[in-house]
């Protein structure tokens, strides 16, 4: 039995049992963050806030949603949108947040790539982050099934058909995933289970891993400078706040986080109330009809780049290219052979690689939305090739990179 003394206050009582002061120091007031960072470093907090919005709005949708093929559409578009007080608000928040979260994820990802925050001890942050991207993608896809509109049904049909593996004709696998020959009741309820329970649990676990992976190597900074956190934190605690290269997470960094979050929320709520069409596609306001494919089917915008890598090739090659595209980002820390942990603009050819990757993914995204006809399919084809070639070239350019 550990030694306990009579508590002098509530704080002392909790401290003896839960070490709250130590936890507070490690997680907040003595979690040292470099000062040399910009607002892009706040994207993590923006993601936490957006995820919280998704959770809370999701809870209220869950109270009224019915995962039944006959009543799902009505439960969303009549009960929630018309009858439930503020039901329309939760739905709009949920739909807009589900789309905007990916914009922030991509900004967050590309920030990491630009500043080399996946290298030199930070590989697990990158890998856990990419796993979070996969989990969020699965969460978004499963959620999209739920309103059981035309897009829900046909996206479900097309994406599960991928698992037939082209020439492998693994139809049994497709039927097993669906629980039926076509997307029907079994399909809807199992994706409901995934969306409401299993994937959120995985996401929460991965967020824990992601934060832990970040805590130990410390946050990166704009110049990639290796900071002596012990020395700099001593300076800060001695009173030289301005001279120290580091600051506390709470309240120093958090106040800047909250400022970025505040400005982000202005933009976010503007979308929720006035400009939500991009997140709530009109086609999904038609109830699902298994006997009628809509004239234009497309995934949500954040999947378009990888959809476009699938499309221009014949079935088997397309599936291989698609599989490649999903996995390749995870391997970034190992494909980048250069030890330079500095921003891309100081890395010679890598800077070109970076901007080309970014622009190319935007081109792929645009082509993925456009109908598969000329000139769009031709542009999409070359874009997909450029994407694959860039990744093959990465180890080569980085091997020959000059030490920064």
């Amino acid at each position: 039995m550990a030694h306990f003394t009579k508590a002098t206050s509530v704080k002392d009582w909790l401290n003896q049992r839960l070490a709250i002061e130590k936890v507070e120091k490690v997680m907040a007031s003595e979690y040292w963050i470099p000062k040399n960072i910009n607002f892009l470093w706040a994207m993590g907090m923006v993601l936490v806030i957006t995820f919280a919005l998704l959770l809370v709005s999701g809870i209220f949708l869950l109270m009224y949603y019915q995962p039944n093929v006959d009543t799902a559409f009505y439960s969303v578009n009549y009960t929630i949108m018309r009858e439930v007080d503020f039901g329309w608000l939760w739905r709009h928040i949920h739909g807009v947040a589900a789309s905007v979260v990916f914009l922030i994820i991509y900004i967050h990802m590309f920030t990491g790539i630009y500043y080399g925050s996946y290298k030199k001890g930070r590989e697990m942050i990158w890998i856990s982050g990419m796993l979070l991207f996969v989990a969020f993608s699965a969460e978004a896809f499963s959620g999209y099934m739920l309103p059981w509109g035309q897009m829900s049904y046909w996206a479900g049909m097309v994406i599960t058909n991928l698992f037939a593996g082209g020439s492998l004709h693994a139809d049994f696998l497709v039927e097993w995933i669906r629980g039926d020959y076509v997307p029907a009741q079994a399909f809807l309820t199992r994706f409901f289970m995934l969306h409401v329970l299993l994937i959120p649990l995985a996401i929460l676990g991965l967020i824990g891993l992601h934060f832990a992976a970040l805590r130990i190597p410390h946050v990166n900074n704009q110049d990639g400078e290796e900071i002596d956190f012990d020395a700099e934190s001593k300076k800060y605690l001695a009173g030289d706040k301005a001279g120290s290269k580091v600051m506390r997470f709470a309240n120093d960094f958090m106040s800047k986080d909250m400022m970025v979050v505040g400005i982000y929320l202005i933009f976010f709520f503007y979308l929720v109330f006035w400009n939500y069409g991009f997140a709530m596609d009109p086609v999904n306001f038609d109830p699902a009809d298994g006997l009628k494919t809509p004239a234009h089917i497309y995934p949500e915008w954040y999947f378009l780049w990888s959809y476009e890598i699938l499309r221009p090739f014949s079935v088997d090659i397309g599936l291989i290219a698609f599989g490649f595209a999903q996995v390749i980002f995870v391997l970034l820390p190992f494909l980048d052979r250069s030890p330079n942990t500095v921003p891309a603009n100081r890395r010679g050819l890598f800077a070109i690689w970076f901007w080309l990757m970014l622009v190319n993914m935007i081109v792929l995204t645009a082509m993925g939305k456009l109908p598969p006809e000329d000139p769009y399919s031709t542009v999409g084809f070359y874009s997909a090739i450029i994407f694959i070639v860039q990744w093959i070239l990465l180890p080569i350019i980085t091997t020959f990179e000059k030490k920064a």
Partner: protein
Amino acid sequence: MENNSRRGFMGKAFGAVAAVGAVGSLVAMKKSWDPLPSVKAAGFTTLDMSIYNENELVVEKWRGKPIFVLKKTAKMVASQTEEQKVRDIVVDGSHFMVCIGLCTHLGCIPAYNADEEGFLCACHGGKFDWAGEVTAVPPPRGFDIPPFKIDGNKLVLGEAGPEYTQMKETGVTL
């Protein structure tokens, strides 16, 4: 969290603004829990009182609960005591016993015996008469009467008309 207290003001101010937002969200959340308009609208049942036969119990439905409607015979009406008269509901010249068909003991639905002109609750043996009063324990009080309003030869359950309000105020029903 170390905040120099004279500069901690802005942090506290921001916290207060955030708290206002949180309270607003909680208000919206509370309202999302409220019963839906369609549920509240279904809270009114209109009964056409001209269709019932004397001494024939009919069970209607109101807010998910069974409602006993019993048209009284002339003999029943003639024999009404003062206590029974205050429970009497008169619509378009006919006398009725209208009540919530749940035993006031623990909520089972009693059965009506037309020959004996009385109710027996199978759960614990409670008995009520044709006017809804208790004739055998354990029920603590007569059948509860739902809010009602007389509208010509119709009875609207869920709306409190003057007769019902009177009954409630004088303690005839809870």
